[in-house]
């Protein structure tokens, strides 16, 4: 064995491994997207489906559904690796733990956040958004889903090893996610009205950058504690 513990190489391998695992069960990474689409579909069902009203509703429905789908998915970010001892091995691998967890979070975003963002314009169309709004909606969800994944990583770390952590996880992450939700919905609304959405997009990007610097450290601290 050749000793060459490069942090980049390690992260790349974690990414590849997680992607391979996800694709081995093809249905799996499609599930958050499907959940998202079904939930957005529930709204017109539960309400009187009138197009003009639907359109007003669209930003809220879209973002609530995206938030819920991503929280539902984030629960599995560390769970399995925690249970089977993989995280233990990561902690003992001689690399920065936060860095390895960031790689895991990136893989998770590629598998849930990205498909979600790609599916969102479709759902928006179904809720009566005009075609011109779709690029804006896509952009908002791309940026927003990054910070949702990162915030989610903190919550997933904290609730790792807690029985029925899922519900507690949502309790912890939802308050953190409210700014993302508010700005995201605002951006979507502006996009549907045909106005410029640069303002909320900048804010979403800022939240993402903030999360990128803070979340891995917090998640690493949290996971370490629950490994005891």
């Amino acid at each position: 064995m050749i000793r060459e513990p490069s942090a980049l190489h390690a992260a790349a391998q974690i990414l590849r491994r997680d992607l391979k695992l996800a694709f081995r069960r093809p249905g799996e990474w499609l599930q958050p997207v499907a959940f998202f689409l079904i939930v957005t579909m529930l709204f017109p069902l539960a309400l009187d489906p009138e197009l003009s009203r639907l359109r007003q509703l669209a930003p809220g429905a879209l973002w609530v559904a995206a938030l819920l789908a991503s929280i539902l998915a984030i629960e599995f970010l560390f769970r399995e690796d925690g249970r089977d001892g993989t995280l233990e091995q990561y902690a003992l691998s001689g690399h920065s733990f936060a860095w390895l967890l960031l790689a895991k979070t990136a893989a998770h975003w590629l598998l849930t956040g990205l498909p979600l963002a790609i599916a969102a314009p479709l759902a928006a169309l179904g809720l009566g958004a005009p075609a011109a709004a779709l690029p804006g909606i896509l952009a908002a969800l791309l940026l927003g889903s990054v910070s949702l994944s990162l915030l989610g990583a903190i919550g997933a770390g904290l609730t790792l090893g807690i029985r029925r952590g899922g519900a507690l996880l949502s309790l912890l992450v939802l308050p953190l996610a409210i700014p993302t939700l508010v700005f995201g919905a605002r951006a979507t609304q502006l996009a549907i009205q045909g106005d410029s959405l640069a303002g909320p997009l900048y804010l979403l990007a800022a939240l993402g950058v903030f999360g990128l610097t803070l979340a891995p450290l917090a998640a690493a601290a949290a996971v370490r504690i629950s490994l005891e």
Partner: protein
Amino acid sequence: MLEVSGLHVWRGERHVLKGLSVQLAAGQALQLLWPNGAGKTSLLRAIAGLLPVEAGQVRWRGQDTEADPLTFCRDLAYLGHDLALKGDLTAGENLRYSLALRGRVAPADIDAALATVGLTAVQEQLVRRLSAGQQRRVALARLTLWDARLWLLDEPAANLDAAGQALVVAAIEAHAAAGGVAVIATHQPLALSTGVSSLWRSPGEPP
């Protein structure tokens, strides 16, 4: 090489390890034969840095391990009750990805290690479809490829048949011969040569 001195560890309300000290030189293996619940798992995890230590020190090559955990970890292989194997990957893939964290390994080495532990036939099976003992053997193969100087093994012979236990013994002997150190929790003393191994029968009476 490994010096544990005055270690105190608590599990919740329980004062499990009360001022434990032990030293191991290169090429030595220590078998912990303590009874159930005496704190073997706790000791191994405390040495690895996975459990917080209330008082005392763990030194490796003369360095306090808490001072520079990353460097210490590069020398360390921990095999716990949980095997850190992915049920949805084959044995070979599992080894490939987990070894990648510590450097590069040639695929041929992986195949050779799997052959040594007698898994060539099921090499292409998902690990989830392997029996309990077969999974242990995968973990054993990984251990031999890890190239770590300090092995911490928690009941490595569990679930293994007689042939499998002989494999564990051989692996530890080879590790010690190469100047490695091993701490092993076990209930059935492993048949290691006496020059290499010392037995520790209860936390009260040092080895």
